[in-house]
Each structure stands twice: as structure tokens, then as C-alpha cells.
């Protein structure tokens, strides 16, 4: 809560936080907020491709579905995919990075070689291969993203753990006879937590981009699920006529990812221990990899 307060002092981060809150609430209350909540699975073929109007705020799509309503339900898919995928990849990657960094010799090298293999091709390619093999289902998309995203966390935590292990207080703890798991969990993990939190925020944004790209390429959750990437792909066949079809989900992705990135930026200024006490403008160039 103290953290929230500190972020809130940064105006840009606050904006991100507010936008995120709005989208999360919209996703939660989608059935209430949607003007045509049944339009995710039912169609009104007579009302297809209508431009935005009072009845259909963002217009209708090629099946006659209300885009505004579908967008709200799509937010659920997008948020759920990103949150679960990032959480799983963190849960896999962080312990691997910790163990690898703590025992940097044979064990660490081995683990890092494995993660190197995953990092040797763009994440989206591996994710596509996995999603395509397992079939376009939401759980497969999440699995594909998790399986390809953990190496990033493993790498990050590995490097940070190796640094932290050089800290005298960690050596002191080890000398004191503190068992390894306790050193990792109670000393090292809290030390690297700030950078993990920052990366998580930015990683959520990146994962949304990757997930929507999978959807765009037809590897996302199957129709009629209103996944944003798929909505854009479906809309393409009706461009440039029915432009609203592609505009709404595109903007939704932009806004949501931007919110995560802004929060990440704000968190960096607040959390990064290396920056404490320094001028905000000197913000360290934390890799802004949107799609890592």
C-alpha cells in the first residue's frame, strides 16, 4: 500500500494505474457493462457491419455482433492470458534462475544453456509452433506463452542472483550456516524483487502483444471468442470499408499495454534500489523490451 502511494505520486504512472483499473473493472463487470452481452456467441446477421452509433457505440462486426460488448469480454481473455502466462513463467523461471545463480557452476551453466536454447529464436516463433501443434485453444496459448517466456525470467534472476551472491551479507548468511533455500528465499529474492516487479509489469504488456499476435495469426483462442488479435484479423477482410471493426481492438491493445508500461516505468523510479535518492530523470535504462 505504501508502494501504491509512492507510485501514485508519479503522475504518468498514476495515469497507467487508473487506465488499468478501468480496464480490469470493465473486464470483471463485462456482463453488466456490455450493451449486448449475448453478442459474444449469438449473432444478428441483419445488423452486420454497422458503423458506430448510439445503439452500437463501436459499431458491429461482420457477424452482426456488437463490437463494444465483444471488446469488454475480450478484455477478460486478454487479461487472463497475460496474467496466467506471466505468473506461470515467473513461477518456472525464477526458481530456475535462483538455483542456477546460487550454484553457478555445473548446475547454473546447465540451466542457463537450456534457457539459451529457448532464447535463440524469437519468442513468438516458438510460441506459434507450440500453439499450432497443440491446437488453437486458450489454454494452449497460455501454455505456449509460459513455456517460451520462462527463460527470460530465468536469465534475469540468474544474473541478479549472481550479483546478489557477491553481496557480503549473503556470504555472511551462508557463513552463518543459513541453508541455501533460506538464503535464496529470504535474502536473495527480496533483493531482486524490485526489478522482478518492474519487469512483471512490462512483461505483462509484452505478453499481451505476443498473445494478440498469436490471435491475429489465427493461433489464438478459437472463434467466436472475442480475442482482440483475432478481432483485428477478422476485420481485415472488411477493410477499408468497416474500419471501426479493426480500430476498436487495436486501440484497446495499445491502451492496455501502454498502461502496463507506464506502471512499469513508475515502479522503476520508485523501486529500483540503485536509483533511490537519485533524480528521477536518471532513470536507469531498464530494457524496454516490449516483446521479450
Amino acid at each position, binding site marked *: 500500500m505504501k508502494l501504491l502511494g509512492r507510485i501514485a505520486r508519479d503522475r504518468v504512472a498514476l495515469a497507467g494505474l487508473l487506465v488499468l483499473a478501468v480496464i480490469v473493472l470493465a473486464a470483471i463487470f463485462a456482463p453488466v457493462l456490455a450493451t449486448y452481452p449475448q453478442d459474444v*456467441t*449469438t*449473432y444478428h*446477421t*441483419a445488423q*452486420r*457491419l454497422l458503423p458506430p452509433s448510439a445503439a452500437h457505440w463501436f459499431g458491429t462486426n*461482420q*457477424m*452482426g455482433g456488437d463490437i463494444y460488448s465483444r471488446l469488454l469480454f475480450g478484455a477478460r481473455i486478454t487479461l487472463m492470458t497475460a496474467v496466467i502466462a506471466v505468473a506461470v513463467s515467473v513461477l518456472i523461471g525464477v526458481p530456475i534462475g535462483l538455483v542456477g545463480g546460487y550454484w553457478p557452476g555445473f548446475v547454473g551453466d546447465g540451466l542457463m544453456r537450456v534457457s539459451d536454447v529457448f532464447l535463440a529464436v524469437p519468442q513468438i516463433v516458438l510460441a506459434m509452433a507450440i500453439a499450432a501443434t497443440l*491446437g*488453437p485453444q486458450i489454454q494452449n496459448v497460455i501454455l505456449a506463452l509460459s513455456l517460451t517466456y520462462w527463460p527470460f525470467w530465468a536469465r534475469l534472476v540468474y544474473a541478479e542472483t549472481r550479483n546478489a551472491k557477491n553481496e557480503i551479507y549473503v556470504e555472511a548468511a551462508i557463513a552463518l550456516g543459513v541453508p541455501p533455500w533460506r538464503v535464496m528465499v529470504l535474502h536473495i529474492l527480496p533483493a531482486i524483487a524490485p526489478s522482478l516487479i518492474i519487469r512483471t509489469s512490462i512483461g505483462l504488456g509484452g505478453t499481451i502483444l505476443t498473445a494478440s499476435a498469436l490471435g491475429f495469426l*489465427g493461433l489464438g483462442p*478459437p*472463434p*467466436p471468442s472475442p480475442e482482440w488479435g483475432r478481432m483485428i484479423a*477478422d476485420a*481485415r*477482410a*472488411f*477493410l*477499408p*470499408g*468497416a474500419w471501426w471493426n479493426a480500430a476498436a481492438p487495436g486501440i484497446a491493445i495499445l491502451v492496455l499495454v501502454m498502461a502496463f508500461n507506464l506502471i512499469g516505468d513508475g515502479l522503476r523510479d520508485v523501486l529500483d534500489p540503485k536509483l533511490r535518492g537519485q533524480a528521477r530523470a536518471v532513470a536507469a535504462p531498464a530494457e524496454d523490451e516490449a516483446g521479450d
Partner: protein
Amino acid sequence: MTSESESRLVLGRRELALGAATLSVAAATPALAAGTGKFITANNNSYDTLDPHVVFDIGRIASRLNLYDALVRWTDDPPKLNMWLAEKVDISPDALTYTFTLKDAKFHDGTPITAEDVVYSMERILALKKGAYGLFSSVVKPGTTKALNPKTVQFRLTSPYAVFMAVLPEMWVVNSKMVRAHEHNGDWGAGWLARHEAGSGSFRLTHYDPAVGFAADRYAAHFMGWGPKYLDSIEFRGILEVASRVLGLEKGEFDALDGYTPYDQIKRLRGKPKVKILTEPSLRTMYFIIHNRRPPLDDVNMRRALCYAFDYNGFINNLLDGSVVRNAGIIPDPMWGAPKDLQGYTYDLDKAKAALAKVKGPMRTLTINALGGYPQSGQAAELLQSGLAKIGVKATIQSQPWPVVAARLGDEQKSADLIPLWRSAYFADPHNWTGYIYNSKQIGRGNLSFFSNKRFDELTDKALVLVKQADRQPLYEEASRILVDEAAGLFIYNTNYYGAFNDRVQGVRYCPIADAQDMRWQWLA
């Protein structure tokens, strides 16, 4: 035995002879002839191979049609079968021996086309077992095709086959000398021919890049001669995105689009300057393949429930804006053999529920395999899914590119429950829509629905050995009724062809079997 009488026997019409007559575009006076430049077609399929004997679909027909010739060729709408490389054909009274006499014609490299080349081409199809193989395999055995002399070739069928002439346009004649020279480990030159051309067609290949498409220059010495105006060169590009194709046409980057442009785009293009739309009745029915063997779809009531749960009106009149016409059966209504009074299914959820109630086996979630890149296929899938949901049947949609769907189609285990797609006119005969795709002998090949019905088999088998259309027609009509009664498939509509062209394009001769991609007739104003 005269060629005329026999051919009339086979085709049951005079069309063959008439077609040949209309097509006698004798070499025009050279003084008037004029090249009119380059013509670019944006196609929805990519040309990943040029080998004419490994693919057999309308989407990629342009490379075969323009680079190669066959003994006979379909043209125009309604389709007419014309003598092409063949001067004439003699058909024995038992309808087992077909003897063709060849015209004087030369391949692009100048070698004359001989009976030997025809024999080689047929043997090649039978050996590669791809493309149109399934059309010939049941009646033509390897080694039975003979070159009687350089100008005469003879086919010996194992049994009467009423559609033999109708499918012969898919037997493209390749330059046997050239292909033999590039054979490698007995591959019949497959490796080489995928990337090169060894034909005699109206155009000769100049560029080919599987990632882009192919381009060809006019072959001035083509044996059919040329009209007063023609194209100097043609180019076909595989462009997977509808939007890109349409925008390109609007901007004048392309001169024509494939025949699968969604009607929404056609509507939009209608108002555009420099664009013209050609509308022709077509022979392409849209339907859902239903897996007739997998429970609960093996129960006719289940299949009927499906057919009652599809919103035909919403699909045809709203989603497609009335651009197509309801077709109750699988045979396109303009085709003979389609019963004119056929009562199909209507969107009727009560009847659907009633049928569903009679289903004995346990219910499960059905799988619909839509074709990626074809918006209509996906829309039909979503509409059926939505209808099914209303009668309490769950369905999931998997959208995949055609090659992936195709690779699973014949596999009883892996094929999806329902696949919304089209049945194009590969040859203009009711067999194309009935026996070939529903006869139980074709299971695992043409019959992708795993449908088997004794009466249907009898009818379609008999229709293949009869020669007169009048005799065959009632058989096909009854067969068609059986398919509807059994709900062997979910039949939706027969399409119209909407060709989008640059308004400079002239001389288009549309044919349902070739769309408008036979480029020898066209020119630019």
C-alpha cells in the same frame, strides 16, 4: 465408328463438336494482332509448386491452364468441353477404348508434341499418385496407355467411365524428353518440375518465386493461334490477404482478383472507378462436410438436427447480401442431375430439437474445422455454432489453412466433425458432386464424409457406366435426394462468380472450371 457419334454418346450432347467449332480461332491476320501489355492477377492461393500433376484445385489452376495444354479443355459458362491438343477422339462401342488423334503442336522448346508425351504424362500421374490421380486411378492402369503412332494415342479403360472425357482436361501434357532429362532417383522429374515448366501452353514461364508467384510471356507459336488482341505477358501473384488484394486492385496494382473475393468487398468495389465486376452463374456449392461415421453423427437424426440449426437466410441474405442462391442439394441447380423440386432444410429450431430428441447415443462437443483465410467459411462455422448452441449442442471451431485441413480430410480418425467448404466444378458432370464425393468406394479418397449408402452407391455406380445423359439424369436426381434425406452434408448455396477486374480488361471468358484465369482470351484496352 465415327468420332462424332461416339463423342455424342459419351457426352450425351453435341457440345463437344460445337465447342470445337466455336473455338476455331484460326490464327488472326498478323497485321491486326496487337499485344496489349502485362496483366497481373492477385490470387488467394500461393503457387508453391508448378508441377501440373501434383495439384488439382481451382485456386491454383492458373499455372496449369496457362503453361500447359491437355487433350481437351473446358471453356465458357455453362462449361463446354472442347478439343484442344486432340484433333478428334474415337470411342469404342463398349466405351472402354479412347483413341485420340493429336494436332500439330509444339512445346515451348520447339519439340513437337507426340503421343509419347501423352503416354508419359498419364503414366506420370499414375506414378506420382497426386493431384488428379484419383480421377483416373480407378479406370486407367499403368502401362495400358499406348502411343499407336506419333500422332495417335489410345487409352484402355478397365471399366466404362462416363466422365472420362470430362476429367481429361486435368491430364496436362508435359514435354517428356525434357522431364526425363531431369529425373532424379525415379522421381519422374518431380523435384525439377516443381520449379520449372515443360509445357506447350499459351504462355511460357519467365519468372517463378514460390513466395511471390509466377510470370509468363505469350507463346506466339501456340497451336491454337491467337486472336486479334492478346496479352504480352501475365503474372499471377499469391497474396493471402483479402484486403491487400482488394486495395491493390483499387489502386491499379493488379488487373484482376481471384474468384473468391468476399461479397462485402465486391459491393464496395462496385462503386470504385477503374474497377469492373463480372457476374456469372457458377457451379460451386457451399456445404459442410459431415463426418457420417463418428458418433453421434452416424445417427441420421443428429445430422438432420444440424441441418435444421443453420440459419440459411441469415447467411445468404444478410452475411452474403443475397449474392448467392440457396441450393438445397449438393449438385448446383443449373447443372443437370439436380432435382428441380428438391426440398431442402430450413432454419427451424423446433424441428432441430425434435430431431435431436431422437438421437440415441451420448452427446459431445462437435468440432468444426473452418478454412483459415476464407472469411465465409469461418462465418458459416460461427453461424452453425450459434445455431447449435440454441438447441443445446456445443461446438468448437478450429480455423486452419486449407493444406492442414486437407491433409486430415481423408483420415477417419483425425478429420473434424464438420468442415464448411465448397465443392467446385472440377469437371462439369453431376458425378463431380455425387459419386466422386459420396460413393462409399471413394472413402478415404474423394468421399471425405465417410458416407455410405447402398442405394446411393448403386445409383452412382450405374450412372458411371451409362452413356446417355437422359439415362443418367434420373439416377443422379435420386442420388441427390438421398443425400438430402440422409443429411449426408449440410448443403447451403450455389455461388455466383464475382470477378473483380480493372476496367481495361477485355475479352474475359469465364468458365466455372477455370474461373477467369485462362488468359489466352483476354487483353487490355
